[in-house]
């Protein structure tokens, strides 16, 4: 698969605070983002022949019917949740390399009007809510403890990380603040006011050790990216963002991760990405040193630090010190991270904004452009398996 496909188009709706995209529907948002991504590439719906989705994938039959896609040749979805974000582009690439399709869209659309991800494991929610989880055999071993939202669960991993490695709240704050600084320069970002260290420490604690600013936003919106063969990509509007490598999956005993807490001790306090990272570097034929900018799925600040460790940008347990040294700051850090403002401060569209930003960095058109960036890493959420990642490079 290496170097044989490229991302050629990106598109997005405006980003909305949770529930504010109404009266548009989620699939309407998906359509707007898809059409925008095709237009960005210099293509139309007549060129589209595949769907490669992840997490809550929608009904592509209705979607294709709505848009009038002439010939649907591939429609598939990675299982799991936000872990599959970056990997959905790998799924598209696999289809293209296999000859099953030629022009594949990966799209995430999210509308949290009736319910919210923040309570997605609660045993009850708003009547008709999509994301609360009614009592289940496995949930029975978690919910009665009070763990009902992803942030509370990741707080348990963060607590262990602090205990093992001496990671501190100042380190979490550096992730939140550096990401906010990037968002402040972007018109599309929902959070653009200054976040100081004092403000971080004055914020209300949600679930120790995570405070308000360690949590990502809850949003509505859609983001789409279009992938095609490298040959076709070179004839299109923008310089191709070449898919060097993509991997998804993870250790079976990482499993459901935060919703079982039984992961082996050696990687309990991790992002669950270590095996995926290893395969990504193997496929790409490069290592972390080659990466100019990293778009790391940031639902919660400690998970950015754990991904820095798991992808080998620093040693295991050294992520806190790595961020404290200014490494993830744009523009002067050794590895600018989440230059778009991330899930924390730009918008939470379950990780597809990270893929979009990776493409824009490779094109050289990002708002917070890393000068001369030629290799960009995007990751899916540290979550139940599959987790995933994507390595893009310029075609130079």
């Amino acid at each position, binding site marked *: 698969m290496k170097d044989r496909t490229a991302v050629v188009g990106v598109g997005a709706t405006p980003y909305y605070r949770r529930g504010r995209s109404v009266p548009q529907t989620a699939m309407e948002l998906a359509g707007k983002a898809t059409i925008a991504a095709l237009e960005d590439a210099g293509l139309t719906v007549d060129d589209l022949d595949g769907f490669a989705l992840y997490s809550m994938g929608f009904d592509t039959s209705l979607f294709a019917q709505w848009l009038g896609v002439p010939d649907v040749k591939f429609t598939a979805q990675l299982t799991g949740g936000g872990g599959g974000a970056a990997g959905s582009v790998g799924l598209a690439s696999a289809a293209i390399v296999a000859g099953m399709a030629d022009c594949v869209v990966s799209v995430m659309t999210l509308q949290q009007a009736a319910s919210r991800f*923040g*309570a997605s494991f*609660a*045993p*009850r*929610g708003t009547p008709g809510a999509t994301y*609360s989880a*009614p*009592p*289940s*055999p*496995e*949930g*029975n*071993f*978690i*919910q*009665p*403890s*009070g*763990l*009902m*939202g992803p942030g*509370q669960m990741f*707080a*348990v*991993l963060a*607590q*262990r990380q602090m*205990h093992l490695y001496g990671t501190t709240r100042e380190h979490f704050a550096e992730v939140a603040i550096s990401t906010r600084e990037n968002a402040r320069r972007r018109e599309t970002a929902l959070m653009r006011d200054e976040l100081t260290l004092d403000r971080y420490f004055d914020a*209300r*604690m*949600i*679930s*120790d*050790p*995570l405070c308000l600013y360690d949590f990502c936003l809850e949003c509505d919106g859609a983001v789409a990216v279009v992938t095609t063969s490298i040959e076709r990509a070179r004839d299109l509007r923008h310089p191709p963002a070449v898919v060097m490598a993509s991997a998804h999956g993870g250790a*079976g*005993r990482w499993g459901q991760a935060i919703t*079982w*807490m*039984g992961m*082996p*001790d050696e990687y*309990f306090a991790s992002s669950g990405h270590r095996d995926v990272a290893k395969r990504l570097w193997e496929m790409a034929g490069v290592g972390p040193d080659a990466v100019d900018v990293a778009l790391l799925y940031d639902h919660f600040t400690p998970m950015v630090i754990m991904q820095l460790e798991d992808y080998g940008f620093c040693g295991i347990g050294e992520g806190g010190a790595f961020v404290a040294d200014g490494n993830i700051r744009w523009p002067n850090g050794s590895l600018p991270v989440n230059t778009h403002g991330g899930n924390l401060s730009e918008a939470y569209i379950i990780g597809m904004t990270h893929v979009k930003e990776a493409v824009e960095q490779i094109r050289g058109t990002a708002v917070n452009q890393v000068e001369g960036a030629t290799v960009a890493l995007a990751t899916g959420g540290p979550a139940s398996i599959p987790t995933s990642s994507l390595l893009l490079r310029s075609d130079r």
Partner: protein
Amino acid sequence: MSAPRGVLPPDVVWLAPNVFTEPFWLATAEHRLTLPRCTSCGTYRFPPSAFCFHCRAQAVEWVEHDGTGTLYSFTIIRHAVIPDVADALPLIAGVVELPGTGGVRLVASIVDTDLDAVAIGKPAELVWYDVREGTTIPCFRLV
């Protein structure tokens, strides 16, 4: 019915056992902590499931455990993600590792424990929370 200090209100605690998990809850209703162990290789599996992740055998025996363990990690829940839990906050949600089980961990409320006394590595002992007739869930007190 007894409720230790620091548990969820009964209204949000509902069990939905299946064939694999029901023996666990039948035992807790009698204030006994039992864990499923593979009859072929002796590996504990938790939560209860259809297969041994080590040898893939299906049969288990239910082995009693005294419920003394160690706090592996925790969080202090201070914000109500659903209104029903607001009056119960703050709550300590803990992960307790049980010795002699190959690393079985229970996720449970840490009860009758002051917030500033919570720390990873502390010994924990079992406390029962009788939610309603026929429903009892395990909790832990730090000692």
